């Protein structure tokens, strides 16, 4: 049977996210409770979490989380990493045995910094350097898979129900200001740990519910710009789209949202001339970055999170606010179970983002 990345697997899902906009940190119990409530939206073939603000002591280092199939590929990959990065600290990621989580790979974590002279020689910035080498490992080192590469954040994922994966990684021992979670319902998967979500690139993490029908148009578009879609998953291509738009092209986040969930032409016609020109330009230049078909996604990055539905809302997505916290989830119950009496709870319109950023950050 082919592994994820060698074929395309449609899947349905559950998603949930919490942010404390004041930056107060809290452990992983709440997010586990929220995603566990939506147990029936997953089928035990994939679960995962992204946690932001969890490595304050290493906040200037890229935290590489890597799955290895065996020791020999681990040695080869480490050799490659140490050639290109200074390794501040390395070790396996602590886990505990949980029934329902089996066939675990070797799971390692490295806090690294790109080698200065190499960054200079390559005429790129550190972020670009790191992303290139992460893509290189993931495409050229068979049996090694970097599943997290941001600063002061980390992804934890595997094959199993998400609540079991959360316990397996002992997420109650980490504290972050933002957590997102994903439970997966793939229709057909050999159960590869790398195929679980979130998908991340540097500090971007994407969790996603839906099957996008624009996949190959989006893939062939980002692949023109140095990305390589090795997993053939929607989350992977969505992550690359945002990375390209926001990091490489410097498109402001609110405009990037107009790219992926573009307003309808009919609605554009009703706007003022200036807005019309802007939206027409966006739709013309980035037509191939429009994400089509049903999706609800939670996009996490250093500054906060953004939740977004496809433009005709073919997937469920609920948001709520209470105090300094914003919650988003596939189902209202998954919010209410961890948040009594939210002061505001709503169902965002198709294409209308929920933007929850740390205080002091700009869209």
């Amino acid at each position, binding site marked *: 049977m082919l592994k994820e990345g060698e074929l395309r697997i449609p899947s349905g899902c559950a998603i949930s996210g919490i942010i404390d906009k004041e930056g107060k940190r809290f452990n992983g119990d709440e997010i586990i409770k929220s995603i566990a409530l939506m147990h029936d939206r997953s089928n035990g073939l994939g679960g995962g979490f992204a946690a932001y603000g969890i490595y304050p002591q290493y906040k200037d280092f890229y935290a590489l989380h890597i799955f290895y199939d065996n020791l020999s590929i681990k040695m080869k990959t480490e050799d490659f990493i140490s050639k290109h990065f200074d390794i501040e600290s390395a070790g396996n990621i602590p886990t505990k045995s949980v029934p329902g989580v089996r066939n675990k790979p070797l799971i390692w974590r490295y806090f690294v910094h790109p080698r200065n002279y190499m960054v200079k020689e390559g005429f790129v910035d550190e972020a670009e350097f790191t992303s290139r080498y992460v893509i290189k490992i993931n495409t050229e080192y068979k049996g090694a898979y970097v599943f997290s590469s941001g600063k002061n954040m980390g992804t934890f994922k595997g094959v199993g129900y998400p609540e079991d994966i959360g316990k397996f990684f002992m997420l109650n021992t980490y504290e972050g200001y933002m957590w997102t979670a994903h439970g997966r319902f793939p229709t057909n998967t050999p159960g590869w740990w790398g195929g679980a979500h979130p998908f991340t690139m540097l500090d971007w993490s994407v969790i996603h519910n839906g099957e996008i029908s624009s996949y190959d148009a989006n893939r062939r578009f980002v692949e023109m710009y140095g990305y390589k879609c090795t997993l053939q998953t929607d989350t992977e291509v969505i992550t690359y789209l945002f990375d390209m738009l926001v990091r490489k092209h410097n498109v402001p986040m609110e405009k990037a949202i107009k790219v992926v969930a573009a307003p309808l032409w009919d609605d554009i016609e009703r706007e003022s001339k200036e807005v019309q020109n802007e939206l027409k330009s966006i739709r013309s*230049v980035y037509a191939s970055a429009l994400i089509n078909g*049903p999706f609800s996604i939670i996009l996490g990055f250093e500054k906060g999170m953004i939740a977004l539905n496809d433009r*005709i809302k073919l997937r469920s997505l609920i948001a709520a606010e209470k105090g300094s916290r914003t919650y988003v989830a596939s189902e209202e119950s998954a919010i209410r179970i961890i948040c009594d009496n939210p002061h505001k709870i709503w169902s965002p319109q198709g294409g209308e983002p929920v933007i929850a950023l740390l205080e002091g950050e700009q869209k």
Partner: protein
Amino acid sequence: MSLDFNSPEFEVIRDEKKCIQCQVCVRQCSNKVHLYDEEDNVVRADDIKCVNCHRCVVLCPTKALVMKKYPLEFKENANWTAAALKEIYKQSQTGGVLLSSMGNPKPFPIYWDKMLLNASQVTNPSIDPLREPMETKVMIGRKPEKLEFDAKGKLVTNVPPQVELSIPIMFSAMSYGSISRNAHESLARAATELGICYNTGEGGLNRDFYKYGKNTIVQVASGRFGVHKEYLNAGAAIEIKIGQGAKPGIGGHLPGKKVGEDVSATRMIPVGSDAISPAPHHDIYSIEDLRQLIFSLKEVTDYKKPVFVKIAAVHNSAAIASGIVRAGADAIVIDGFRGGTGAAPTRVRDNVGIPIELALAAIDQRLREEEIRNEVSLIIAGSIRNSADIVKAVALGADAVYIGSAAVIALGCHLCRSCSTGKCNWGIATQEPELVKRLNPDIMYRRLVNLVSAWNHEIQELLGGMGINAIDSLRGNRLMLRGIDLNEKELEILGIKYAGE
């Protein structure tokens, strides 16, 4: 003079019981097939003159007429077919180059028919275009590599001029001269009503049609007929025609008898003179020359009009296309070997060029590998027969398509492939006033509007079925295609998987 070895292609069969000797057929046939015999009060037919255009069949009030393939058989021979023999009879009689009209009719593979489309089932919903928005608008033109915004988030990039098409379909280049004024008017009015464009072809633009400029692509071909500053500024975009799918590598020839007063004024050539377009543009002997022409045209139009470059699909199209992008074109038009024509040497039409499906797939892929695909629009032509062909073309990577044959078929063309005689009974490929007036633009433009609207509905249905609500998301989305009855190499070039994979 020696014997005429030619035999009729068709047999005119008249049901004498139904025929009322009204002589409509006699009056309608410009080829003079039908003759009324007063003495016997019967209508007779001279089979050898019949081109099987169905004009008399359609107009016969009692439906008394049927054309059949002429039953005369040659002794069976898989190599020396009847067609091969007849061509030799013709050429040995006249000493001339064989001429043909419309696209390559030979039984080469039709790749559109070997690709199948996807539809949503369970894991994502199909979308009903009658209930949900379904967008088929496309923007044709050059795109910058990226958009830039200022610190306040305001757009700073000026996107080059785009042609907005409400449906990704345009009417192919057919010159005034090769087709009639009424045919042109029908195309122009239909394009205007549909929010799409038609193309002047290389014959210039009649003054009376300047009012349709917003929906007109003005062509600049090697003969430069009718090209002047006002003409270039009259349209929505300019198209430099380098080649044509039906006759790659050669020019065009409009016989002097088609050059009447009006055509003469439009083309800026004397009445009755042959209009001969040279095979190459004599100011383009290489790619750097093309760049100069592109920018001359941009200068004269103040950089307000996109410039398209049209080439025939030939072996090296992908590399040529890349050069065209780098030469500064805003859109590339690729015309496949099945593309129609008013007249082409038969040997060229039937043996030169490659299928548009393969050329499109190769070009789209090559431009992506060179990271320049997003900078230009890719338009294809060369026998788009229905809406499914369009959907497959877009999935392979096209932004829009041109339709020529389909458009004239909507106007009544029955593909008798005798355009070059100038005696088109349907008033399309003719300049004879008596024939031209048979085509009433008030009625015929509606047929074009109907056709394109119907196709748009079908495109929307197919998109919705795939769970897509904007055609942008289908462009280059090759996972929506699967091949059937194709070999590994064909699949590789098309960049698609086999059905079942």
